[in-house]
């Protein structure tokens, strides 16, 4: 039932996804959260290149626990995406293709998602040990001084995701509860 996808995600692939679809994502994603987004926005404002080529890429809003010995990564669930809303339209204009996080996005981000034909996926908040099992490799590629907030390139294998906002701007955070309440109202 879950759709298996591999990065880099093409615009046609993203057009085919609908809010509420379950996805298993494999390939490469880049972690970045509050501090890294601020630095990237500042770099862009100065006309500098971002620390990685963002075109067509997927960002995972995550700051993992330190890596225990013998493992590729520590616990790594999603962080609340709305804190990155201020920076997201810019990154989408620069070519960002998909984001993984959790929680609502603001209307400007949803508009930007529609304009760029991007998708916002949700990972399960608080299932950080399970998420860690989906990561097979991790490399810090920028902002190492930020510790847990550094930009890391992750190789992931079948990370379970839900399409939270599809490329048409349909928002499963609105549709999901509405569908449930509707289902309830139809119970005897």
């Amino acid at each position, binding site marked *: 039932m879950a759709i298996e996808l591999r990065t880099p995600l093409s615009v046609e692939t993203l057009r085919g996804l609908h809010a*509420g679809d379950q996805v298993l994502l494999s390939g490469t994603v880049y972690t970045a959260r509050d*501090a890294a987004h601020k630095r990237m926005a500042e770099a862009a404002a100065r006309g500098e290149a971002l620390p990685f080529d963002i075109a067509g890429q997927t960002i995972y809003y*995550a*700051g*993992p*626990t*330190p*890596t*225990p010995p013998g493992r590729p990564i*520590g*616990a*790594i*669930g999603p*962080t*609340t995406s*709305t804190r990155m809303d201020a920076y997201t339209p810019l990154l989408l204009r620069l070519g960002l293709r998909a984001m993984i996080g*959790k*929680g*609502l996005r603001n209307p400007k981000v949803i508009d930007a998602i529609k304009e760029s034909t991007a998708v916002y996926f*949700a990972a*399960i*908040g*608080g*299932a*950080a*040990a*399970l998420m*860690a*099992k989906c990561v097979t490799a991790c490399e810090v590629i920028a902002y190492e001084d*930020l*510790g*847990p*907030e550094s930009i890391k390139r992750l190789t992931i294998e079948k990370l*379970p995701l*839900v399409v939270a906002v599809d490329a048409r701007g349909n928002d*499963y*955070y609105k549709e*999901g*509860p*509405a*569908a*449930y*309440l509707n*289902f*309830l109202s139809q*119970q005897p």
Partner: protein
Amino acid sequence: MREIHASAITEAVAELCISTNKHLNKDVYQALGSAMEREPHESAKETLRLLMENAQVARQESMAICQDTGMAVVFLEIGQDVHITGGSIDEAVNLGVRRGYDEGFLRKSVVGDPLSRKNTGDNTPAVIHTEVVPGEQVKVIVAPKGFGSENMSRVAMLNPSDGVDGVKGFVLDTVRLAGSNPCPPMVLGIGIGGTFEKVTLLAKKALLLPLNVGNTDPYYRQLEGELLNAVNETGIGPQGFGGQTTCLGLHILTYPTHIAGLPVAVNVSCHVTRHGEKIL
């Protein structure tokens, strides 16, 4: 007069930082299980099952349940007849946090200044609440607090005329505004009464209470039940994608208050609600 060395506090804090972050409390785990059984919405049921599986994996593989291993909130209940030797109590607590977060491979999530925001690198300082109580024990409670949920917490100074309906309305508004952000299913700590700072402390302490035990006061036990039903009727559900299980449990703590006031606070926590204690 009983002497306790500060190093015992350090050791207890370090141990509890690790255990609370890797072993989900039994009452929370059981609440997830009961919720899963009652949940009529299939996708919500599956999410709850995955959350339980996550807790098992975390325990078995000694991993943090959630990557937000929190800012350390530490409660110390110090017996009046105890003399603590070997240095500053606060320093002993912070040393315990530093050690626990280092040895447990827990995340360093604290910035030294709220505006300049440089990470302190060791998850200190903790937020420490100290009370002096009768007796000659020291009780150490460590309750790491993640900020996805903390950020959704709110406090209001209601009018006494707003009454219990005003309180219910405030709790429900808080839940609706929080929505998916605090990783539902949530756990709620509610404070009513006191002063501006007291009511928020009541709400935080209410998060330490076991989920399967209701308020000792019948009036508040009933109010807890009504609020829990009302929150679950929002349909927000696990992860905010719809379902019956928006809240695993909630507790109310109260304190006398001023004739002109009705302070109320809602401290939102997620399904990874963590607290553990040791008595020295």
